């Protein structure tokens, strides 16, 4: 008898909780935004910083009453899918988004995944924001992909030119992981360096992503004594080890990359040896970050225990989607309306000080506006933090 009473009480409690949850969710209609990217394995940091940025922002919006689009206030729900950096899984992820009726997806994080999901996205009316650089994704006739960051063929030349003019760099060597993204970024970097008149002294050395000791990998490169060593497409996991090995082998030149890095990871993995390391960041430095950016960092840290500097760039995609939908409410269910509004869309950039605007760019690189405008902030690591080296713009 007692057991039956206990069962009844438990059942009642579960029912009440479920009803309460439904009521809470039912206060605002839900707008689902998808994320398909890598959140496990060696490149997990890339996707997790995306996912957590989106979840932090969504929780923030929901906590403050929701997001108003066309007179309706929505709660934002992030639907995530781990593609494990596998194109087949990325396709499955995008199909899941289509099945859930989602029209706006952030990701995938890598070139082959982004290319693989294109047919699904186009057939299912999904706009997606990859962190991958192949130009064919963003040039006509493709029109559903929007580059979520600065591409290496945009940042690389700017960095090399700056270093040629200010640091007297004349020779450059490239090293890349033996994977599609880093290799294509290396090839783009080599072409850009040659076009600028740099002497490329080494561009064939690659390494396995699971390399545990970079000394043997770097030894042949450093014999060519380059002024600048470019770590093409280097992941945050490998960057500290490469820097440390290069410095321990006596390399005194400059080291740079065109990917975003995390200051904490560099500090732990390479310490002072990482001083002077040049990388690409977002609105990260104290002089650029707006109060809203600082609050985002605080909320992210509270939610997940630790901030990731890569999120300085990753925070933007969701904001662009929501701001564009706010400007064009019918685009919630009509992707063509979203595309039509991209040419003229403009809204204040809430994450940067000053009069910066959120706009779509990419005319120079892609012939159409299929890239979000994030500032090209080139950072230099110094004593545990990034300092702004210079700021440039795409287009």
């Amino acid at each position, binding site marked *: 008898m007692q057991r039956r009473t206990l069962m009844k009480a438990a059942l009642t409690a579960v029912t009440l909780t479920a009803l309460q949850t439904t009521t809470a969710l039912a206060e605002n209609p839900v707008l689902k935004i998808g994320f398909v990217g890598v959140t*496990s394995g060696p490149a997990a940091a890339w996707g997790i910083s995306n996912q957590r940025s989106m979840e932090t922002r969504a929780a923030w919006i929901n906590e403050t009453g929701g997001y108003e689009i066309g007179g309706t206030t929505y709660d934002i729900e992030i639907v995530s899918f781990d593609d494990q950096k596998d194109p087949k899984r990325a396709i499955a992820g995008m199909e899941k988004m289509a099945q859930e009726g989602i029209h706006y997806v952030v990701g995938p994080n890598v070139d082959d995944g982004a290319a693989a999901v294109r047919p699904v996205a186009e057939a299912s009316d999904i706009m997606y924001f990859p962190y991958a650089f192949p130009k064919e994704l963003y040039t006509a006739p493709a029109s559903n992909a929007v580059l979520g960051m600065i591409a290496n063929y945009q940042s690389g030349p700017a960095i090399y030119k700056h270093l040629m003019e200010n640091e007297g760099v004349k020779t450059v060597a490239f090293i890349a992981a033996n994977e599609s993204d880093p290799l294509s970024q290396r090839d783009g970097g080599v072409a850009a360096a040659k076009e600028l008149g740099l002497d490329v002294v080494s561009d064939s050395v690659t*390494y396995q992503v699971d390399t545990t000791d970079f000394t043997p990998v770097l030894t*042949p490169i450093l014999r060519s004594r380059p002024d600048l060593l470019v770590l093409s497409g280097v992941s945050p*996991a490998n960057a500290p080890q490469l820097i440390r090995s290069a410095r321990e082998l006596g390399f005194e030149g400059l080291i740079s990359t065109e990917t975003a890095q995390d200051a904490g990871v560099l500090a*732990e993995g390479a310490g002072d040896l990482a001083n002077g390391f040049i990388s690409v960041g977002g609105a990260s430095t104290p002089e650029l970050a707006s109060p809203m950016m600082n609050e985002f960092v605080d909320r992210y840290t509270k939610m*997940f225990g630790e901030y990731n500097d890569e999120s300085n760039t990753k925070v933007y995609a969701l904001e662009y989607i929501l701001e564009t939908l706010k400007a064009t409410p019918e685009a919630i269910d009509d992707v063509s309306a979203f595309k039509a509004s991209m040419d003229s869309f403009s809204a204040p950039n809430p994450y940067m000080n000053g009069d910066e605007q959120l706009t779509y760019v990419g005319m120079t690189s892609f012939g159409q506006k299929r890239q979000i405008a994030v500032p090209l902030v080139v950072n230099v690591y110094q004593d545990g933090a990034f300092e702004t080296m210079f700021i440039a713009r795409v287009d």
Partner: protein
Amino acid sequence: MEQILANGVYLGSQYAMIALGLTLIFALMNVLNFAHGQMYVIGGFVTYTLYGQWGIPFVLALLMSCITLAIIGALIEKYLFAPVIKGSSREESTMLLAAGIAFLLDALILLVFGEKQRGVPKIVDGVFNWDFRVIMPYDRILICVLAILSIVAFIALMQYTKTGRALRALAQDRTAAQLMGVNVDRYSMIGFALGALLAGLVGGLLVTITGINLGMGGPTSIKAFMMVMIGGAGVISGAIWGGFILGFLEAFGLAYLSQYGDITYLLIFVSLMIFLAIRPQGLMGKPWG
């Protein structure tokens, strides 16, 4: 050439350490432990937390990594592998279990330690430079020496202690060992714990050089399998040979083939396929198992 040889010795010693634990578990239980790499990662994270975050002396942190992994290994053997081995005679049951444990550990590592690459302060500063013929940071030399000493200690344990003799008996013939009075259940657990301890030890040692991250487990397991297959599955000396052979192949390949792109591992894999086609039992293994 001196630099290549030094790189080979360093890589070989760490690889041999990684392979030892895997081959020990295989020898004792005929289990391909796909979670070996994840155990290595946990060892690295424990040392990172204790030494890098809490400031506990490195040696103590390393010891705690070993103990933590030994406990995890013992629990996994007692509550997961032992029941499955008793209940199923199909080898794929333990393989699936091992793969499942690998995924579980990956998820737990992400939850507990996060997704970021982690590193610890250097345990020794400075770089050994012999007239630019051999350049090797002192911490790498120290880790290399510690790895070689650990291998020697492990061999001594297996050769000269009662536990080692019981484990070797178990590896040679489980039924005969049982008939001779060896407590098979107990020593299986001890053996698995010892294999996991070795993973924790090498993880704790290498976190000082390579750092550690969530994704290192899978690739580490694959490399360990390669070394074990080269040396002969389940043979301790084979794992050591396998580790040093792979280390030297990498060191020479990266030095002489780098100008042709990343063909070092391509050639290593092709060589491994040809080698296994000719000698499937590996260098030190016996054709009958």
